[in-house]
């Protein structure tokens, strides 16, 4: 709870700091410092369960995921240097809105009441709509914002309709109340199941799972790079954390009623994500589709929540977030928002910037799920969890599609190591964020217990 307030206050501060010429230059520094402090506080009050009665339950799960989100956001703020120079006046606003997004995210991972879930999702989404359109001078940015807004609001409608049905059936919004109701009612009414499915649809949209994924590639491509990296990492992790928290908290007992809806979504997501990524030539769009594909693997953890798969989900989230944040950091370091960046323009990176090439390779290997990188164990864990629950067919599909995935990741690696078209002067420095992300991918790959002992 304190964390939530602190983050919001930090956001307001940066809003007002953005008003004055002098403070505007230091906004980013202030925020990074503040976020680090808040992260420290979160880890310090790790086991202190803080309640905001009936609304937020800041338990271990929430604390862990909050820490993850805060760390990612800190890295993104580090990365966002010079990203908003295109209009100085609104710098503070952009930073502030990003912080409000983080606040919404924290709400989403610590809610204990559907009201807070809804508010969190909306705080997150509405801020993101704005951020997606933050390049007012680019048509593609406004197009991204527009599509995201229209589809997002549409999906919110479904989510709310579902919540209303659940409320109608159970008469309460609190997660624990709902699970009690599920326990004590022998014959659940049909509107309850309708509500579960509608809520699931709303959340599937938020995690960009097929067939509700349509917004993702366009929005990712259209938005400014820094915002895209934010969506692909922090927001995605948050959405999954919320998804898992809600379904394991409230609907775990009736999972045989919704699991095959989820299985359909997972199958579509895996196929569409991986195969479409295969046909991409732009790096950003490739990453967008790989994000969709990864959503499929993370959903396996949600599918297997009957025996606690939160470990697997956490590990996968971290490994995915690290890899994809690193990839975006590389993208940001080599391209700008104006034009789309083709994979073929990576050629010769191994000559021009060997260090970054190596780190990028590590990151891509982790994404492709080659041991001993983190990605492999993430896939291994979610798959073994799903198999243990007896979902063999879908796990098999996941394995096969992951082999498809290896192709496009290696396409990128091959581009990095193939000979450059033009002679380039070598400079051997990599962005600190790339370094950190590659490091994480390696370390937690070599020693997963670092993560797995958190719970």
């Amino acid at each position, binding site marked *: 709870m304190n964390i939530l307030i602190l983050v919001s206050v930090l956001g307001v501060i940066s809003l007002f700091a953005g008003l004055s010429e002098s403070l505007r230059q230091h906004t980013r520094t202030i925020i990074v410092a503040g976020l680090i402090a808040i992260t420290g506080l979160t880890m310090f009050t790790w086991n202190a369960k803080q309640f905001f009665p009936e609304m937020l339950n800041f338990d271990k799960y929430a604390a862990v995921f909050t820490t993850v989100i805060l760390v990612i956001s800190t890295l993104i703020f580090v990365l966002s240097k010079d990203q908003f120079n295109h209009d100085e006046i609104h710098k503070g606003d952009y930073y502030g809105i990003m912080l409000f997004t983080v606040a919404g995210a924290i709400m989403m991972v610590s809610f204990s009441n559907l009201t807070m879930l809804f508010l969190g999702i909306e705080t997150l989404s509405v801020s993101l709509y704005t951020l997606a359109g933050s390049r007012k001078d680019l048509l593609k940015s406004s197009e991204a914002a527009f599509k995201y807004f229209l589809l997002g609001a549409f999906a919110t409608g479904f989510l709310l309709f579902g919540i209303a049905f659940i409320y109608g059936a159970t008469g309460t919004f609190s997660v624990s109340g709902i699970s009690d109701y599920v326990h004590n009612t022998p014959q659940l009414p049909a509107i309850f199941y*309708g509500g579960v499915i509608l809520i699931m649809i709303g959340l599937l949209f938020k995690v960009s799972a097929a067939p509700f994924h349509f917004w993702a590639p366009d929005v990712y491509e259209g938005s400014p790079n820094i915002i895209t990296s934010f969506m692909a990492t922090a927001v995605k992790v948050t959405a999954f954390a919320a998804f898992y928290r809600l379904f394991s908290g409230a609907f775990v007992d009736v999972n045989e009623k919704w699991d095959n809806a989820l299985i359909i979504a997972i199958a579509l997501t895996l196929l569409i994500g991986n195969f479409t990524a295969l046909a991409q030539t732009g790096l950003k769009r490739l990453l967008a589709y790989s994000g969709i594909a990864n959503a499929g693997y993370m959903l396996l953890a949600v599918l297997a929540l009957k025996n606690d798969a939160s470990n697997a989900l956490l590990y996968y989230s971290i490994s995915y977030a690290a890899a994809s944040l690193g990839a975006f950091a590389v993208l940001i370091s080599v391209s700008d928002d104006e034009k789309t960046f083709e994979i073929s323009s990576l050629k010769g990176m191994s000559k021009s910037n060997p260090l970054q090439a190596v780190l990028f390779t590590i990151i891509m290997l982790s994404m492709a799920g080659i041991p001993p990188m983190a990605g492999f164990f993430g896939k291994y864990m979610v798959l*073994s969890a799903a198999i243990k629950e007896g979902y063999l067919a879908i796990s098999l599909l996941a394995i096969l599609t992951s082999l498809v995935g290896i*192709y496009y990741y290696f396409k990128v690696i091959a581009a990095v190591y193939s000979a450059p078209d033009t002679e380039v002067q070598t400079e051997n420095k990599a962005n600190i964020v790339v370094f950190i992300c590659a490091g994480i991918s390696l370390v937690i790959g070599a020693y997963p217990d670092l993560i797995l002992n958190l719970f």
Partner: protein
Amino acid sequence: MNVALLIPLLPLIGFLINGLFGKKLSKSLVGLIGSTSIFAAFICVLITFANFISGGSEVQIVKAFDWINVGDTNLAMSFQIDQLSLIMMTLVTGVGFLIHLYSIGYMHDDENYNRFFAYLNLFVFFMLLLVMGDNYVVLFTGWEGVGFCSYLLIGFWYKTPEYNNAAKKAFVMNRIGDLGFILGLFLMYSEFGSLDFTGVLSNTLGHDKGTITAITALLFIGAMGKSAQLPLFTWLPDAMAGPTPVSALIHAATMVTAGIYLIVRSHALFDLAPDTMNFIAIIGAATALIAATIAMVQNDIKKVLAYSTVSQLGLIFIALGVGAYSSGMFHLLTHAFFKALLFLGAGSVIHAMSGEQDIRNMGGLKKALPITHLTFLLGCLAIAGIPPFSGFFSKDEMLAHIFNVNPVLWGVASLTSALTAFYMFRMYFLTFSNDFRGTHEQKHHLHESPSTMTIPLIVLAILAVFGGLLGLPEFTGIHHGLSYFFGTSNDLSSLTRSFEGDFHTTELILMAVATAVAIGSSLYAKKIYFENKTLPDEPKGINKLFAGKYFLDEIYNKIIVKPALLKGTVMQNFMENKVIDPAVNMFASLSVSAGNNIKKIQTGNTGFYIFGIVAGVLLILFANYLIWFR
């Protein structure tokens, strides 16, 4: 700190040093670091070996650190020290060290010297993980790692595109195998609930026979890819694109034996799946024969050796198929010795001929390269199975076991070994005897290789000659060293198959036959290529088939690729992907065309997106409609 932990650590350190700072260090220092790290590892292996023997040959599990703990799954990065892994470790580090030593001289003029040694060390590291791991996940990690390293090393001279393609081909064929492996692992996990060797191999009782067969078959598919068996063997000859030490280390001595190691390691499972065993034996026989026939008409010195490697591996797989695991391991060892020797010899020849690989342009190198010539001859004698060289004992042990189970397979196997003797001596005579057929400046440039290259040759030659002593046949009175060694362990003792009844006479007869065949075909080769001085000309008749490698690549092309190529977009797309190899094209182009079609639904048209979402909602609601009111 247990010494065993140092074994994989040292090559890793070597890799890190060479990889990170190699550019700064001088070539001699890089070579020194590279080979000493392996040598130190070798010493550690010997120490571990000694401790093991003195410790009463008790299986030890050395745990590095806890790796994964999810629910009731817990995997430790821990190593199993037993007879089998010790033999493999000794082989990897020992031969590995010699080849590193050799590379110092061989790669001396290469500008990416440090990269080469870094990769080589990394390979040894992963190979050690593979053979030391005490659970299938560690094994799989090593498995993937060596595959990746071989990909890097085959494509080491990445300037030339067809080398890159060879690398890709190898990588893809291995992935196809790995798919089988992964599926096998998951099936195994869901069946046994564990991936530890102990957890799986000691609880083999009371499981569904079909499942076991499926698991073993899947594992064997993995082995097919890695050990270049039919139909996935075409990558190995292309892999000769890599530097010769690489071919010697990875594609003759160590990596390609990983599949055999896998099967021997999980023999407890394979014993329960007779169908798989027969399958293995048949595949091995087919591979052995086909590869041997192809090798007869190759003119590239390295290609000959590559195909002979494939066929020797085939022989070993026959032996495994009939359950003669220890004999298979025995031949694996001796084969590692003499094939590494032959490759290094070939490398020294190529070195002397300044890059020439076609044996039709060689000849008469006897005088120019005395040491190489002598060692190479010994290697040929060993592989041809002429007594008393090592190959003779191992091969005949295998043949005896095969005959004991199935005479037909024995016929195939001995035919293969006859062919082996023939093509080896064909190559030998074409290379070393008669007079030189190369260009003038080549002749002028001929020289014996430096000592860093000849010393490994000599050492390996000694091993190739006396390696047979590891396993003298039983009737000699001296008991079979390897089998005895395996016998000291409870769960490995079943590796050795003993003949029922009095088999010695039969064995002797078989030996005589095999020896006669080997010597006969060698003499035949001598007659053709030494006395008549005939040169291999354009292959005619059946030889066309052999020379065309049974047109396997073309067949893959016809059946699989052509249909896929019909789409022009596809063509263009996988050109972008730079995958030219048929096997890849099948998968890649089909997938890419699928992708090209699927991506069409992403019409950037918001109205359509909304329609898609609503359709999805209806789909999911309908899918659940039936279930709600169940």
